[in-house]
């Protein structure tokens, strides 16, 4: 797929970046103290903080990843929306006010408030860094995906661009500039996502969608044929692997997907230019309805016209509706050359509108994986360091509570929109089969260049806002938790700010490198792992500290370490890593669990309880 930036998209993008940098330098002179740098002085209004929460939380994973996942997998992507939002309930009811009461600059401050333990400082700082880096990877990856069509630049340039801009934002004014960048981005994301959904509903549904640039989705790539027709046209069958067939004609290769009834669908494929599974620029956008339930073929082709939100979903859920979904397969041909083949498959409307396309629940392992994912999403939000530090930017616990409610309202509304954005992309021929992260911006492109430019620029700002929050959290862990408090370097206020800026620079560089290495992986999937690590490493410690008086410092340290090691250990030895980054097969994994939460969260609780009971004589501070 060859998409190039238009002058308009470049101008809008430049305006966004200029506005963000202006904000950063405007606030720079007002954030000279450590409190100003790490916590925006604790004086942000709760309503502003609430929208900033949304700007912080609604990351590339939400806007790009979830919409992309819904576009290719249907309802399974929406599970992330539900889980991500539900996690805010834990934050509001259990965590918000106590975190504000106990903390100062970082999540570590709150955990350590009753103990003054170097072990907690070290463990919590490491946990903050691990979770932040897990979370940073998909954000940077999303930035690279955006810059390709927006500015016509390579993926790695986008990653570096985001890294540099965010380092400038954070270094300029820390949490103060980050707050207003997130506020701006959160507000714009909500407004323009609503507008885009409005366009989708106004267009309605059709089996002949507009697609990009007025062309049919998939271009010539969704040609239907029979074997005899291909032979008549001079195609020669040279290789068959499963349901995929390779034909040559006049020296050119084509791959076809064979249906059970003998029909062949022309597939898309990539070979030599593939990097981490991403296409080398030859793929056409795909995704369409083949049939709309309750309508004749002619009516379906003419389209429904504008529909209500309920009617939009009801049409897609209809048992007679047929949706074209695209599958990816890595295959080798008769010469042992490797190909990645993308082929269409027709499914009934009911299939993608319920859980089970990606997260199957047939076997016990699949059920455990599903429950594990939903646990991690539910318990992860309230344990994300970059979210927790936003509780220190408001004046009081009551303000922390109110800002969380504003966050729930705005984030919940956005997540409702994701279902329409993702499904809209799925049926409007705007899914890049090799990189579904671009589904929402490409959907916007089908409504014209202006909306695409605005949505892409907002998506880019989305990445900026979240990455800035993550880098503030990570730099706080390094400079405040590790250097100043754990290392007892006894830094002056000015030195703390300087150390934070240097740490921000270092974390930014790490993020850039990882963003380039992990190109092409669905951003929401990676964030799901970040949630699992956060839920395992941090939440048991937070909850037990608040609600179990026998908790000891050693118990908290044990809980964090066990949480990190077990969650990361399960992920790194699991099927997703073997089938993905390791280049092996899922069957070679050490165990079948793709999601660690169902093991690692209880294990972390158990570690805290056992170690606290064993070390109860050292429980001075809690009882004091």
């Amino acid at each position: 797929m060859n998409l190039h930036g238009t002058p308009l998209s470049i101008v809008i993008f430049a305006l966004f970046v200029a506005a963000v940098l202006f904000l950063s330098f405007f606030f720079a002179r007002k954030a000279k103290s450590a409190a100003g740098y790490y916590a925006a002085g604790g004086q942000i209004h709760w309503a502003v903080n609430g929208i900033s929460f949304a700007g912080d939380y609604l990351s590339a994973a939400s806007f790009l990843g979830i919409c992309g996942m819904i576009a290719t997998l249907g309802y399974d992507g929406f599970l992330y929306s539900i889980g991500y939002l539900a996690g805010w309930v834990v934050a509001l009811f259990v965590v918000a006010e106590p975190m504000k009461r106990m903390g100062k600059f970082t999540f570590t401050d709150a955990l350590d408030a009753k103990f003054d333990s170097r072990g907690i400082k070290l463990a919590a700082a490491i946990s903050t860094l691990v979770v932040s880096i897990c979370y940073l990877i998909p954000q940077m990856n999303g930035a690279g995906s955006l810059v390709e069509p927006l500015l016509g630049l390579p993926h790695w340039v986008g990653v570096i661009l985001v890294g540099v801009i965010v380092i400038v934002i954070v270094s300029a004014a820390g949490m103060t500039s980050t707050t207003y960048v997130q506020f701006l981005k959160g507000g714009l994301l909500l407004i323009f996502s609503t507008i885009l959904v409005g366009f989708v509903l106004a267009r309605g549904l059709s089996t002949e969608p507009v697609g990009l640039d007025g062309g049919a989705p998939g271009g010539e790539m969704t040609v239907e044929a029979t074997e005899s027709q291909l032979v008549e046209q001079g195609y020669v069958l040279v290789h068959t692997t499963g349901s995929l067939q390779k034909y040559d004609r006049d020296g050119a290769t084509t791959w076809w997907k064979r249906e059970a009834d003998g029909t062949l669908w022309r597939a898309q494929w990539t070979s030599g230019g593939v990097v981490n599974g991403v296409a080398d620029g030859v793929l056409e956008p795909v995704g369409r309805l083949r049939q709309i339930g309750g309508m004749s073929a002619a009516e379906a082709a003419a389209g429904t016209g504008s529909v209500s939100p309920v009617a939009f979903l009801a049409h897609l859920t209809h048992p007679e509706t047929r949706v074209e979904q695209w599958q990816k397969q890595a295959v080798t041909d008769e010469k042992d050359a490797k190909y990645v083949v993308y082929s269409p498959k027709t499914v009934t409307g009911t299939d993608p509108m319920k859980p089970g396309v990606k997260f199957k629940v047939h076997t016990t392992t699949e059920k455990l994986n599903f429950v594990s994912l939903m646990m991690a999403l539910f318990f992860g939000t309230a344990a994300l360091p970059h979210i927790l530090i936003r509780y220190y930017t408001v004046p009081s616990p009551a303000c922390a509570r109110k800002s969380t409610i504003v966050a729930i309202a705005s984030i919940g509304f956005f997540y409702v929109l994701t279902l329409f954005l993702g499904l809209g992309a799925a049926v409007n021929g705007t899914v890049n089969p090799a990189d579904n992260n671009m589904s929402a911006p490409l959907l916007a492109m089908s409504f014209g260049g202006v909306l695409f430019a605005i949505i892409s620029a907002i998506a880019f700002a989305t990445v900026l806002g979240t990455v800035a929050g993550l880098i503030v959290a990570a730099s706080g862990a390094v400079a405040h938790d590790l250097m100043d408090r754990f290392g007892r370097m006894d830094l002056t206020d000015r030195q703390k700010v300087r150390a934070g800026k240097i740490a921000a620079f270092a974390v930014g560089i790490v993020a850039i490198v990882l963003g380039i290495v992990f190109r092409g992986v669905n951003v929401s999937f990676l964030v799901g792992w970040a949630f699992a690590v956060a839920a395992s490493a941090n939440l048991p410690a937070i909850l037990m500290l608040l609600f179990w008086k026998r908790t000891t410092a050693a118990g908290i340290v044990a809980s964090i370490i066990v949480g990190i090691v077990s969650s990361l250990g399960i992920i790194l030895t699991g099927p997703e890593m073997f089938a993905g980054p390791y280049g092996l097969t899922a069957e070679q994994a050490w165990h079948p669990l793709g999601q660690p939460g169902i093991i690692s969260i209880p294990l972390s609780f158990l570690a805290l309880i056992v170690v606290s009971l064993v070390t109860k004589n050292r429980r001075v501070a809690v009882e004091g």
Partner: protein
Amino acid sequence: MLHEPARSSGPDPASGYKTRLGVVMFIIYCLVYAGFVLTSVVAEGRAMQVIVFAGLNLAVVYGFGLIIFALVLALIYNHLCTRRERELGAAAGGKGAGA
């Protein structure tokens, strides 16, 4: 005005009430959320494809319901917390812990 040092907010007489209320509401939501997860898992998720309202299946209705329910509970929680903060603030002759 915005960038004074982070400040501590002093004692909060309503904190015990808010903690108990928060735990109760958390458990309520937890049960409803667990119901969603179990419904998706039991019988291979077939219940989720049953049409329950205006052509929408249980998966969509329950999913949207969870999002809306979170907001409703949050508003109720805030209302009760704010009321208790005002009551205790008035009883103490101060303005309470509200924002």
